[in-house]
């Protein structure tokens, strides 16, 4: 069974072709600069085959997807003989609002619901729709499934997802907390249950996704009960360039004081803040960790603030869950930063968290495993995430039942 996974952005398309018999990656790549001069496709066979760059004119998403299909069956770079070998396509969709609590087969109603959610993700959802429409036009009979970043968190209760503002904003505008990275939190929660050899249904978990965006999720019996990102991916943890939680009055004050436009303040909070804003050096944790702890006072401060915010949420989520069996670290920073993990877990002994410095230091670069000391009540795991595989699995699961 062969499944194509697509992640369509406004001028790019990421793709991965999976052979679900063994969950191996047959080919993957990235279409860049769609509709812009200098467009190209960077393609590779298998998960880590040599990169091939194909410079070609790509007029729109449809053209881009057609060229990906051509590549997949081409004599030189292809991995399949005919497009009919592809059983289905799975699309990543950023925002499903409160209309989707799981992945679904694409129908006209589903497309309309995704269109209705454009207001929540004005940059992402329109691009996803272009990708969906393009695949439909090129291969009308191919089954398509959509997998939402928000779906996993639809199990949150109103007390967790409501903001403390007039209720009419929720009723009229659906302004509430939605949460993101759902595919990743779901993946690592299932995986940690396997590693613990216990059913997910009896576990209380805290999963920490630290990538470009960062979010943390409290998972009870396999269900998301609380997560740090809100109506948009700006809320919660301090991120590379995003502020995370901030007193809204500060924003109003800055807007008035500097006469900022909404666009400027949006950029300020999304692109000039976070560890970049605090350190004034870099948005990349790897840079700030180089030479730690003697690099610079501000780099340390950024790392400490970043880690402190995570620690605060870990404590809060232990209260929300009334306990915790395991904490999971995932995504770029979560998988690769023993420094952040050690700062967060320092002095958490009272809560049953204690990590082994040796295990912590050696578990990175794709390694998976338990990094806790033997006596720790709460286990700490590092688990590399794989959102594309989840999309492929969901797609397979849905078309299998048809």
């Amino acid at each position, binding site marked *: 069974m062969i499944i194509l996974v697509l992640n369509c952005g406004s001028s790019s398309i990421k793709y991965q072709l999976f052979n679900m018999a063994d969950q191996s990656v047959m080919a993957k790549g990235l279409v860049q600069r769609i509709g812009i001069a200098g467009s190209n496709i960077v393609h590779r066979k298998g998960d880590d085959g040599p990169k091939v760059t194909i410079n070609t004119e790509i007029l729109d998403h449809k053209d881009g997807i057609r060229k990906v299909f051509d590549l997949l069956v081409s004599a030189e770079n292809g991995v399949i003989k005919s497009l009919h070998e592809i059983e289905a396509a799975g699309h990543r969709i950023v925002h499903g609002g409160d209309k989707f609590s799981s992945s679904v087969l694409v129908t006209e109603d589903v497309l309309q619901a995704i269109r209705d959610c454009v207001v929540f993700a004005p940059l992402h959802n329109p691009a996803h729709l272009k990708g969906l429409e393009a695949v439909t036009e090129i291969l009308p009979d191919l089954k398509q499934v959509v997998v939402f970043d928000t779906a996993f968190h639809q199990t949150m209760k109103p007390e967790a997802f409501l903001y403390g503002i007039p209720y009419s904003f929720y009723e009229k505008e659906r302004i509430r907390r939605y949460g993101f990275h759902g595919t990743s939190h779901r993946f690592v929660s299932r995986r940690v249950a396997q590693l613990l050899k216990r059913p997910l249904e009896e576990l209380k978990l805290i999963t920490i996704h630290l990538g470009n965006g960062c979010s943390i999720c409290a998972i009870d019996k396999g269900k998301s009960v609380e997560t740090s990102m809100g109506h948009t991916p700006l809320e919660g943890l301090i991120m590379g360039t995003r502020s995370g939680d901030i007193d809204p009055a500060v924003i109003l004050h800055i807007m008035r004081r500097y006469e*900022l436009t909404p666009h400027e303040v949006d950029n300020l909070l999304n692109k000039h803040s976070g560890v970049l804003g605090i350190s004034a050096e870099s948005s990349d944790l790897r840079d700030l960790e180089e030479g730690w702890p003697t690099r610079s006072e501000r780099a340390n401060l950024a790392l400490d603030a970043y880690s402190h915010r995570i620690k605060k949420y870990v404590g809060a989520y232990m209260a929300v869950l009334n306990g915790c069996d395991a904490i999971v670290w995932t995504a770029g920073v979560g998988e690769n930063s023993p420094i952040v993990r050690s700062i967060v877990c320092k002095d958490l002994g009272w809560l049953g968290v204690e990590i082994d410095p040796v295990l912590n230091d050696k578990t990175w670069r794709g390694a998976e495993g338990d990094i806790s000391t033997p006596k720790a009540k709460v286990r700490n795991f590092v688990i590399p995430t794989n959102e594309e595989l989840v999309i492929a699995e969901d797609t397979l699961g849905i078309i299998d039942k048809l």
Partner: protein
Amino acid sequence: MSQKLVVVFGVGPVGQGLAQAVAASGCDVVLVDETADKLLESMEKINQAFDSEIARWGLTEGEKKAILNRIRTSTDLKEASKASHVIETIPEGLDAKRDLFRKLDAICPPETLFISNSATFPVTDLATGMKHPERLIGMHFLNPVRKTPVVEVSRGTHTSDAMLENAKRFAKMLEKTVIQVYEYPGLVTTRVFLPMLNQAAKVLNEGIAGCEDIDNAMKLGFGLNMGPFALADQMGIDALLSWMENLHHETNDNAFLPSKLIRKMVRAGLNGIKSGHGFYRYGTDGRRIEGSGLSIRDLSAPGAISKR
């Protein structure tokens, strides 16, 4: 449909602003002017404009680099032959504009959209002598282009529906609200603003109120972002004077008869932000100097201006 490549003729504030806006939307752009020096100078100004956006957190260094990578300059008119959109922003002058469009008409495939930024010359006039007049449309962008979210679109007698739709898509790409207007000198914005500025200049000249006070009264009283003088400095007093003269000539309406003060200012070289001095004075970074509002004595005291 082809890939978008936008060629902008003219390196005034609007030409520069369009190059920034188009490149920021993800599209490649070529800025064309007659001399390499002017192009160099305009790229320097574009660079500064992005730096001041960064200083206000509106842009990141990385984004600036990516946007600048999409802007090229050239002195060769033939650059337009590969363009999907050509925009004319050269100085006001009917003959020069007509001449440019005729030359472009001969080298561009018929599907290339021609856009004139002129607010004073009707599209139909500009299209005289073109083989494909259906492709010419008026799109009046306001300075500063990056920040002003509106464009006045005017079609000429010959402009085709397809080209109008194309122009609307282009406006959408640049995130501008389209105001469709009938072709007539001054369109909406220029026509309504000029009499206001004229009256404000008269009020100042008659000593009824000071420069800052007039601006503040209009700004706070009517909820405007800027008062008429601050806005005029941004638009360029010399350009405003020539628009007033054009519109006065065209409409015979004395509301457009330039006030004495405005004529005096242009004679003295007080052309606004670009010359460092207009109704206000500006530092080298283009920021207004506090308390520098023009007083009428400035223009009567001999040598008062050149000393600054």
